[in-house]
């Protein structure tokens, strides 16, 4: 029994204790067994191997419970295969580290499709088996060789309505206009959306956005730097910078924007205009410990509209399966990033451009915002 599995057993025990399925006292006894009784458990690894579970790695926070409620529990019920959620964040480097270790402990990763294109090209991911995963249950153009789209989110403008009176921003040009819309701004630390925003503000037409003119985008961002209070790296940071009044406008994930609107009692609003829509996807690590077939089956199971509806309710994720749209109640359609009415206002990020250019672009961006 490796330390990693020990850790996982303790974790799942502690989760069960928290849910009240086992008492604290039982937890202590069982945890003691896991730690002290290692030799005893070693003997039973053969029995464990047959019911080897899957580990799905996402970005943590509420996503852990939501993925479990929508996908994990149902999959275990149908197949008997346990699914463990791990919120440690599958960045491109972390996935590469898993693969290069020779003995990955991750099966499925909630990955940016452009990272999947890059990592897949380097042989670190399993190609998606489209005999198991149904391409017709996806929006056209959002199933890639090494990743299957499972949700959508968007980079949208959120703003503090109290600071602008009756004025409301209508696009990226307003985001970069501090005369008309005074106050500080917040942008994404890892570049995605900031380049597009700068170019749109600079007058580039949405249709001719890609390939991005990085020089022009960086000049715009460099000139605007003094108006940026912070570059958020995670959803929680983007929420607090608006709720604390440190920024009057920020480009944030749409999933968070609706939460900020709720938490501020409607004072902080968001718009879909010139939002930058981005797919989220699941990918499978090459030689994953839980087996390729189980992982593909999991992805297929996650295409179910009912399950995607749970994800929309819990996290505001736009459903990957268009059949889900109809299930969303009328009053909630407004916050669905892929709702036809919202979709037409937005511009999809070009994943192929990102796969080729992201690394170098991010270097340059980091240089500019950190200087």
């Amino acid at each position, binding site marked *: 029994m490796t330390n990693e599995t020990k850790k996982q057993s303790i974790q799942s025990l502690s989760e069960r204790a928290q849910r009240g399925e086992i008492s604290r006292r039982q937890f202590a006894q069982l945890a003691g067994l896991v730690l002290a009784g290692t030799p005893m458990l070693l003997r039973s690894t053969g029995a464990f191997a047959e019911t080897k579970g899957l580990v799905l790695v996402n970005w943590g926070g509420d996503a852990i419970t939501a993925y479990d409620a929508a996908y994990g529990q149902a999959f275990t019920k149908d197949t008997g295969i346990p699914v463990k959620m791990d919120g440690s964040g599958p*960045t*491109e*480097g*972390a996935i*590469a*580290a898993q693969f290069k270790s020779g003995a990955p402990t991750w099966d499925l990763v909630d990955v940016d499709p452009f990272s999947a294109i890059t990592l897949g090209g380097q042989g670190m991911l399993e190609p998606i088996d489209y005999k198991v995963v149904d391409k017709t249950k996806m929006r056209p153009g959002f199933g890639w060789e090494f990743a299957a789209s499972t949700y959508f989110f968007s980079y949208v403008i959120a703003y503090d309505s109290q600071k602008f009176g009756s004025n409301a921003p209508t696009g990226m040009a307003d985001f970069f206009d501090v005369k008309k819309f005074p106050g500080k701004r917040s942008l994404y*630390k*890892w570049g995605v959306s900031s380049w597009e925003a700068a170019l749109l503000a600079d007058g580039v037409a949405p249709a001719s956005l890609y390939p991005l003119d990085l020089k022009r985008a960086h000049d715009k961002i460099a000139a605007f730097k003094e108006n940026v*209070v*912070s*570059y*958020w*790296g995670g959803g929680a*940071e983007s929420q*607090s910078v608006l709720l*604390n*009044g*440190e920024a009057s406008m920020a480009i944030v994930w749409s999933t968070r924007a609706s939460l900020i609107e709720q938490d501020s009692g409607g004072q902080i609003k968001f718009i879909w205009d010139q939002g930058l829509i981005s797919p989220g996807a699941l990918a499978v690590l090459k030689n994953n410990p839980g087996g390729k077939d189980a992982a593909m089956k999991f992805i297929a199971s996650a295409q179910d509209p009912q399950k995607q509806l749970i994800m929309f309710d819990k996290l505001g994720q736009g459903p990957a399966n268009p059949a889900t749209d109809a299930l969303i109640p009328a009053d909630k359609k407004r916050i669905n990033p892929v709702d036809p009415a919202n979709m037409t206002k937005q511009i999809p990020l070009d994943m192929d451009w990102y796969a080729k250019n*992201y*690394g170098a672009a*991010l*270097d340059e961006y*980091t*240089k500019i*915002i*950190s*200087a």
Partner: protein
Amino acid sequence: MRGTLSERMGAALLMAPLLLFLALAYAWPFLGVVKWSFTLPTPGLGQYHALLTDDLVQSVFIRTLRIAAIVTVVSVTAAYAITIVWVRGSPAQRVIAEFCILVPFWISVLTRAFGWVALLSNRGLINTWLQSIGFISEPLTLVRNEFGVIVGMSHFLIPFAVFPLASAMRSLDERVLLAARGLGSSRMRTFWTVFVPMTRSGIIGSAMIVFVFSLGFFVTPAILGGGRSVMIAELIYLRIFQSPDWGLGAAISVVLVVFIGALMAVLFRYVKPKELV
């Protein structure tokens, strides 16, 4: 090193488990990092050459040194004052000082960083207070910049600076101070020309500890720096995880470790390890 042979043997034996642990858990994996720095993406000195020409790496390295230097001066100065109270104050003062030194050790670095955000942000305690007494009209930018990083790091590192200073202050010969006063030296003069020079090894020791610690800071600048890659550890994170270039990330790490190693070598020329605790 002083002491008899058997004393030295005893010390070596007591140290052995720690050294073995460090060798296995730290030195051995680090050799892998060293290897990456010479082999990824292609074998050779390419990554080190890139370091010399990469202006992002250089600007971040210089800023890291500058912040570390400022934090060192701030922390050691503050720690010096606290240590005097702790070592030489009245019993009540000592208890209060000890409390102030130890409590921060029990609070996680994350909690402390977010605490500073709460204190220093636009709608934080300090800005609201200054605005309500009419001292300022617009909130001051106290956080999500270098200032915030320096405040947060100094707060974290002051307790670490206290111990070498306390050790130096405890071991100095009280009679020398009395003699200076007896010969008519003023309190100020006794402090600056007798007390401070006698705690020299403590000052060097605590400055070195703070400086070396500062060079590797990650969480505090990430939270208080407003998302800009302010310090070198964040840049290593960027290179390893975000835009994977393990070779360059490894090369930066190796340079940092070599630099810190050289600093420690200098430190131990001037101060004996015994004097640091």
